[in-house]
């Protein structure tokens, strides 16, 4: 063990840092997926597409800003702008004109509707942005690298991924927890999650809550995508792998868990990057192995509460 560590310590450190960075992004998508499911009771298969479109949008806006000669730091604004534009346009459109029609339907139909949406959005990306990889490295270069001490070694790593991404994810986590537990609007959302009929009976406008929650979830996913744009080139298929990965996080953590989703994202993110480093062929399999193992032992997820079927 000691010898292995001496040879591979730096690699392991690198893998951990990669894992933390990717966990931050997965968390942004998973927490939105979870929140939307909790409130609307619809699992949005197209949620990963918001991530992809947010990423493409960020690259486009960022490149445009550079082209018109805006200062480099403006590319950070591009990321945020892309997320808000993507989420605030697609979110209300989809909730109002599509999901609203099927809330009363059986869940298999809701799944099919969001799946159809997923097919549409995946192609839309290809039509708008093409199939060639799109990349936008500005912000990463801008922030430079930091030296991360690890096990007696020093690992230089880009500050964007090791500082900015985790900070944004933690702010999201903290902000969301504060919002849901301490503010009136947040408590209204939680009330709708727990008992929709009772909440509606108390005069809460469920339609508005649905609309805002769905849009907020879309913005979070798009923000995740926008933040990912500077770290990896965008290719078709990102939406598909993102939805499956974030579903794996939600299922492993347990439905409705926010802090649990963060820990699980970390676990799965690190698991994956360790696999990439040491056993690259296992990369894609690791998150699902973790999920399957957890579900076999705890069907309600690591942090979930078991739910008995009502009779």
């Amino acid at each position, binding site marked *: 063990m000691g010898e292995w560590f001496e040879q591979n310590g730096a690699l392991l450190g690198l893998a951990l840092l990669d894992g933390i960075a990717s966990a931050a992004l997965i968390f942004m998508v998973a927490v939105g997926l979870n929140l939307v*499911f909790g409130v609307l009771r619809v*699992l949005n*298969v197209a949620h990963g597409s918001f991530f992809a479109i947010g990423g493409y949008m960020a690259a486009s806006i960022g490149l445009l800003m550079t082209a018109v000669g805006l200062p480099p730091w403006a590319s950070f604004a591009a990321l945020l702008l892309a997320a808000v534009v993507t989420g605030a346009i697609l979110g209300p459109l989809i909730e109002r004109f*599509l999901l609203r*029609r*099927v809330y009363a339907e*059986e*869940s*298999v*139909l809701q*799944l*099919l*509707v969001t*799946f*159809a*949406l*997923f*097919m*549409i959005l*995946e*192609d*839309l990306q*290809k*039509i708008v942005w093409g199939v060639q990889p799109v990349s936008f490295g500005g912000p990463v270069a801008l922030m430079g690298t930091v030296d991360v001490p690890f096990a007696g070694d020093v690992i230089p790593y880009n500050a964007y991924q090791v500082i900015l991404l985790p900070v944004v994810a933690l702010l999201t986590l903290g902000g969301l927890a504060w919002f849901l537990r301490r503010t009136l609007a947040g408590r209204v959302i939680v009330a709708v999650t727990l008992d929709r009929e009772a909440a509606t009976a108390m005069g809460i406008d469920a339609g508005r809550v649905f609309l805002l929650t769905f849009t907020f979830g879309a913005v979070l996913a798009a923000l995740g995508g926008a933040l990912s744009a500077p770290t990896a080139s965008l290719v078709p298929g990102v939406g*598909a*792998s993102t939805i*499956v990965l974030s*579903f*794996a996080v939600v*299922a492993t953590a347990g439905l409705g868990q926010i802090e649990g989703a963060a820990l699980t994202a970390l676990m799965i993110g690190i698991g994956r990057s360790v696999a990439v480093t040491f056993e*690259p*062929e296992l*990369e*894609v*399999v690791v998150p*699902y192995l973790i*999920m*399957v193992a957890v*579900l*076999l032992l705890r*069907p309600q997820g690591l942090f979930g509460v078991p739910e008995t*079927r*009502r*009779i």
Partner: protein
Amino acid sequence: MRGLRRAEILIALLLAAAIVLAAFSTPWLRFVLTVALAKGVAVLGILLLLRAGQVSFGHALYVALGAYAVAFLAPRVPEAALLLPLAAVVAGLVGTVVGLFVSRYREIFFGMLNLALSMVFYSVLEKLYHITRGTDGIRVPAITVLGQPLEGSSYDWAVFAMALGLALLFGLLARAYLASPVGQALAAIKTRETRLDFMGVSPRRVLLSAYVLSAVMAGCAGAVIAMATRHVTPLLAYWTASGELVFIAVLGGAGGVLGPFLGAATFELVRVYAAATVADAWGMILGAVLLLVILFARGGLWGIVAARLGRRRAA
């Protein structure tokens, strides 16, 4: 209802005759229809799961399993009559193991777990280059059919006949299964699963039986596709392929076993003409049509046919 069931058989025979005629008159249609029939068989499996209120976004996994089983085994067992059952067994075994796991879950979990597993399989096919040749895929060597080393159009006819035979066989099988107590209990899972438990029936085992059957059907479909195209690639397992199966199931309608075949034939024929002109927007069109069918014509094509038959009977 009874009249409709009898009409169903009549329509099935007419449809089969029309397909054979079309394949005779236009040789290039033969290939399209072979694939359509094979996909119809796979979609029949999706239909079984839909009856239980469940949808799998990952059934292309079993199509790909059947296809790769043929590709891997063909050099050693170059005989279609052996390869087909072997592919069915492979898909059935994997379906049993996976089914034991996923049959514990419903709705979103069921759908997404299937999707996740198919994505894993896709990337395994893609990444294990030294075994699967990655995205290049594997060529299926020449095989005999019932001991006959066929070539050219006679081989294509043989595969076509195999697809048609499978479609008829599994169509009848699915029909009998759905009318049987197990099949009826399957539909009961959708409406009141807990009552089954209180009647001493395990809903999980009922769903598992449908799942394994659907895996076998998809495996056979994959085997036929591999024999028809003579080339298998990981794309067979990609989520878009699973999405297609779900699409065809909804388009054709889940109300009867003819739905999948009506849907598959329509789908493949439209694709031949449309895909060339709108290749980039193909998925988008599928998605849009899927939405339209769900929102405005929920019974799908079979639903429309059945409603017409019903009206004529009533008149």
